[in-house]
């Protein structure tokens, strides 16, 4: 599926590493392990080096995204307005840490540096929707709302990946 990306670049040229990784991520939404090894072989670098680059940059993901992505702004303004506790509350409610995805693949929780909505701090985004001036109390309701709006897909209920 990702083989056509390699056609665009000369082999054994490590300067194309990041472009190749971006290409792979565009197809899958993340960097699957097998594809990472293929990229490493293609640019003739050890897998450890490619893995190092993939984990250094925030833009690369090594696990697939969940159905819903919740982003917590951890910028200065939001931090002053208690965003650390918002994040903590989301982590406890979802049972995951920032950067992780729930086991049922329903939610991915991420932090961002600043989303440029400081006037309504603290802010979280759920998919493309903004929630401003949010309090810890509202968190469980927001999660409940998402769960009601987008019921679990049938195949996931049956336990099929």
């Amino acid at each position, binding site marked *: 599926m990702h083989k056509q990306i390699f056609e665009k670049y000369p082999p054994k040229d490590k300067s194309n590493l990041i472009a190749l990784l971006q290409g792979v991520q565009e197809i899958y939404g993340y960097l699957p392990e097998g594809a990472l090894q293929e990229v490493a072989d293609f640019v003739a670098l050890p897998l450890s080096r490619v*893995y190092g680059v993939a984990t*250094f940059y925030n833009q690369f993901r090594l696990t697939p995204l969940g159905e819903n992505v919740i982003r917590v702004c951890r910028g200065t303004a939001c931090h002053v307005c208690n965003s650390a506790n918002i994040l903590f509350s989301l982590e406890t409610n979802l049972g995951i840490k920032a950067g992780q995805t729930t086991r049922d693949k329903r939610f991915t929780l991420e932090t961002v540096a600043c989303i440029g909505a400081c006037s309504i701090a603290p802010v979280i985004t759920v998919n493309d929707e903004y929630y401003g001036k949010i309090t810890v109390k509202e968190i469980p309701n927001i999660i409940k709302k998402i769960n009601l709006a987008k019921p679990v897909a049938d195949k996931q209920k049956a336990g099929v990946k």
Partner: protein
Amino acid sequence: MAELTINNIKVNAEDGMTILDAAKSAGIAIPTLCHIKNLFPTGACRICSVEVEGQRGLIPSCAYPVYEGMVVETNSSRVRRARKTIVELLVENHPQDCLICVRNKNCELQDLSAQYGVREHRYSGEAKDHAIDISSPSMERDPAKCILCGRCVRICNEVQQVGAIDFTKRGFQSIVTTPYNKGLNISDCILCGQCILVCPTAALRERSQTKDVANALGDKKKFVVAQIAPAVRASLGEEFNMPLGTDVTGQLVTGLKRLGFKRVFDTNFAADLTIMEETTELINRITTNKTLPMFTSCCPGWVKYIEHNRPELLDHVSTCKSPHEMEGAILKTYYAKKIGVDPKDIFVVSIMPCTVKKFESSRAELSEEHMPDVDAVLTTRELVRYFNMAGIDFCDLPETEFDSPLGESTGAAIIFGTSGGVMEAAIRTAYNTLTGNELDTLEFEQIRGFEGVKELTVNINGSDFNFAVVNGIGNIAKVLDDVEQGTSKYHFIEVMACPGGCINGGGQPIHQKPEKVIKRIKALYEIDSKMIFRKSHENESVKTLYKEFFIEPNSHKAHEILHTHYHSRKK
């Protein structure tokens, strides 16, 4: 040439020299952490910072070239304060369990902390917390103790060119690890242990087996036998403050006997045996037009490398087991029968300069009916610790001879411990096998020394034989490419994973001075030159072994006990 002033001392330095090297040439010490001699500087740790007149900030001396009229201050209070802060920050992000640490008293961070007088905890914050990787039978990785100097990464990538570990993530989460943090044993790591030798702390260390050995020695039913690798006897004395390159063979035998070993044998005996088997295999391959060139198989790091990276070339590797595995195999067959002990009760301990040998001894290919040829491997460092634990005053030990019959050896075997030695030993015997005569000169200077790939052509019976010695696994890629394309001109290639050979193995005493290795190598060549018998085929005990047990080299029985086959590990 440039004349500069360092600490008010006039120093003449060559153009392009760094401040660090210029200061060193004038006897002025500057501390370093990330710096590795002969590798391009990274300037990562900043502990080598100095003040340069006219410069606003402090300058990393390892990465800054000298110029005419430069004025440098390496020991001003500003410099000392900066260095102390760096050390304090490193210490606060470190477990500080020196009392129970394996590198206690041999740790660069500990030394710096003492040197800069760190006496209080000024930065109490979150410290990193990582699990220890104990997946490998050879090595442990403890990232909590890592100070991220990057020396291991550079040795692994730039010198050995294995690339098993690298920096991953960033900032506070930064960690040196394998792909997907999966554990050394399932990575492409060849376990050579060169990273251990450069690690300033105990973040990388051997997996200790002293407990297994102590348990075996305490078991009355076990017949515990030790064998010593050639490289150990030339380096172990260093740890007891003996002059560099002291040959401590005699003390080693006595010391091991005092620890409770029933017999102490010499791996050199099996090295002679390896030469008999390996040269016979080589000559067979040449005369019957089988797969050539042939590679040596003594180095388990090299064997693991080819299994991971070029398994399609495994046919080129000699089928001989490595010497200590041969010795173990003979101990549990020929010798067990001879002394009437059940081989299951024999516990073979190899004293090795090597970390991969631990992994090797656990390989299924090297055991017979769930009975490994070698039961435990102790590195030189572990043995030193064991001697200390037992309260043995090593320097004052009297000298004892090895036990017979697996303790006799020739000069050809002792040089197995250094790069080029196996090849030299093989040529000495191959010449005799092919011509029936003996060589006039036994020393081959072309294949001694530190060069990456060493070549030698010897004319035997009118035809030229091309030999090569690969010194350090980082130099192997080109040689393997040639073999793969069928353009290799060599007949026989020796490969040692560690630069310099076993004498600089991953299990040797830790030091940061290359000149130590040169002295150790000199000691081995000196032992060889003083021997009466210097060719493997002159070893009387090996001759007896063939007469009583194996009949001839590469016989059916020899193949069963002394040879093996390896398999692909490519993912």
